[in-house]
């Protein structure tokens, strides 16, 4: 039905968004790529020179890189595990009929709207602080030794904080998916004598699989860029105990002023994120057909 004229108008309406996004993506990425082959330190301006793959060799063989990679994986996998399993459990619970459903739903979703710096600082100080934190007070009341969460197990503590922020997201999406399940199918299975467990395993879980995959992929994209939570709690420490890839690149480029090394790290991060992105894009693309 589209005429020649409306096609031209359509293209005109589309072009600002396309051109801006293209520029936003290509210009900085090309610059990062270029910097990654330079010896370029902000403290020594005018000393830039071509170094080939030196920055990559240096970045990839740095023991901090291996730590950061492991930490990134542990953080992402840990948060995913807590949020998907917890999300499914919560979605099943909230899907049951009970009094005050609307209010409880609102309470559960709330953490998602708390800005990362607030949630990280509140957990760090008001809860995990080994002297005045709530957990320390509880431990003392029970006659136990207070546990220094961020000092002894920094990565695990950050995982808990980030999981608290993302649990609502997983719950909300899984609940939405659960509510789109045909209730007649469940009733039929119930009439045929299927137990609650087998109804969950053979009807609900397959139905949730798709939503769970979406949750995992989208969270992975966001979790790979976790930054504020680390910055305000541990600064990546002690040592590199809670340094992730994102944080390592930040330290290298903005704290050590090593633009070349930071850029090489940035490119490595882009490549890793792309591997995840390909899977996510396939899923969303498949959905677009229907």
């Amino acid at each position, binding site marked *: 039905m589209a005429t020649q004229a409306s096609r031209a108008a359509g293209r005109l309406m589309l072009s600002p968004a396309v051109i801006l996004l293209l520029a936003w993506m290509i210009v900085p990425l090309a610059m990062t790529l270029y910097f990654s082959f330079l010896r370029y330190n902000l403290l020594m301006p005018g000393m830039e020179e071509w170094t080939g793959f030196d920055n990559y060799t240096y970045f990839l063989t740095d023991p901090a890189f291996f730590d950061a990679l492991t930490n990134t994986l542990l953080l992402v996998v840990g948060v995913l595990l807590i949020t998907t399993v917890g999300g499914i459990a919560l979605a099943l619970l909230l899907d049951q009929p009970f009094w005050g459903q609307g209010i409880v739903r609102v309470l559960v979703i709330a953490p998602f709207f708390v800005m990362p710096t607030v949630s990280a600082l509140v957990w760090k100080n*008001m809860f995990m602080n080994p002297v005045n934190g709530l957990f320390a007070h509880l431990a003392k009341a029970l006659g136990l030794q207070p546990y220094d969460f961020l000092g002894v197990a920094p990565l695990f503590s950050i995982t808990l904080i980030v999981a608290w922020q993302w649990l609502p997201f997983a719950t909300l999406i899984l609940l939405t998916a659960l509510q789109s399940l045909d209730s007649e199918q469940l009733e039929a299975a119930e009439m045929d004598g299927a137990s609650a467990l087998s109804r969950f395993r053979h009807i609900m879980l397959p139905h949730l699989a798709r939503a769970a995959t979406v949750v995992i992929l989208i969270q992975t994209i966001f979790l790979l860029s976790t930054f504020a939570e680390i910055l305000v709690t541990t600064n990546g420490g002690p040592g590199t105990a809670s340094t992730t890839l994102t944080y390592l690149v930040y330290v290298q480029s903005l704290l050590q002023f090593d633009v070349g090394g930071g850029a090489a790290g940035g490119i490595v991060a882009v490549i890793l994120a792309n591997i995840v992105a390909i899977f996510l894009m396939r899923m969303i693309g498949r959905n677009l057909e229907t």
Partner: protein
Amino acid sequence: MARAASPRRRAVTTVIAWAVGLAIFFPILWIVILSFKSEGDAIRPPLQVLTSAWTTHTYAEVQERSDYFRHFMNSVIISFGSTLAALAIAIPAAWSMAFVPGRRTKDLLMWMLSTKMLPAVGVLVPIYLIFRDTGLLDTRTGLVIVLTMINLPIVVWMLYTYFKEIPSEILEAARMDGAGLRDELLYVLTPMAVPGIASTLLLNVILAWNEAFWTLNLTASKAAPLTAFIASYSSPEGLFYAKLSAASTLAIAPILILGWFSQKQLVRGLTFGAVK
């Protein structure tokens, strides 16, 4: 799904669900409580905190000592500014993709999505240097530009899924009745598109308000929004529990309220229409 549940089962579920809900919400509740306590009372054991005197003094002190309102205004300007800019660019684009789809529309949508997957650290260095050289570092304009660009793909996608639901038969009917392009836009499409645009605006303001990678890396003090302001409490100042609580409560309250209105849009916006 209205399956019959026995009153006893319903009562048990109610107790469990409320307990879990309150546990998840508790950290937020706790900072609200602490924000109404004096500094000395806020670090006492929990039961003593609850029984100590209530005060609103801390709020006044936060504003006085750190000029809270200025950071709040920075957040408002940055989040609304970037959202409105993104809408202005995205509405025509989403419009044309939904109503005049071409052969490559799908590829274009997927490509836009892919730009969102680019990790921020990948472009941190160049953006930082460009901003430093153009004087955009620590300015609200600079942050509006960055947040507009990082949220543009989500805005286009959300609008596209909403516009796609407007039946094209309505357009044909309007044309049959002799409506010109201008009437079509003004009286037929716009009223139908407003709810979708409003939802997109809401979700995007929330995302921009809470964005904490670029706002932390590109501001120092002048243009610092609330994310950066709160981060400044990570220094030993964080030990001032009551003040940190009051500042935090003020920073999250507006978005918490907006967020509760946007639950449905959240699912749709953040899953790019993959879950509805």
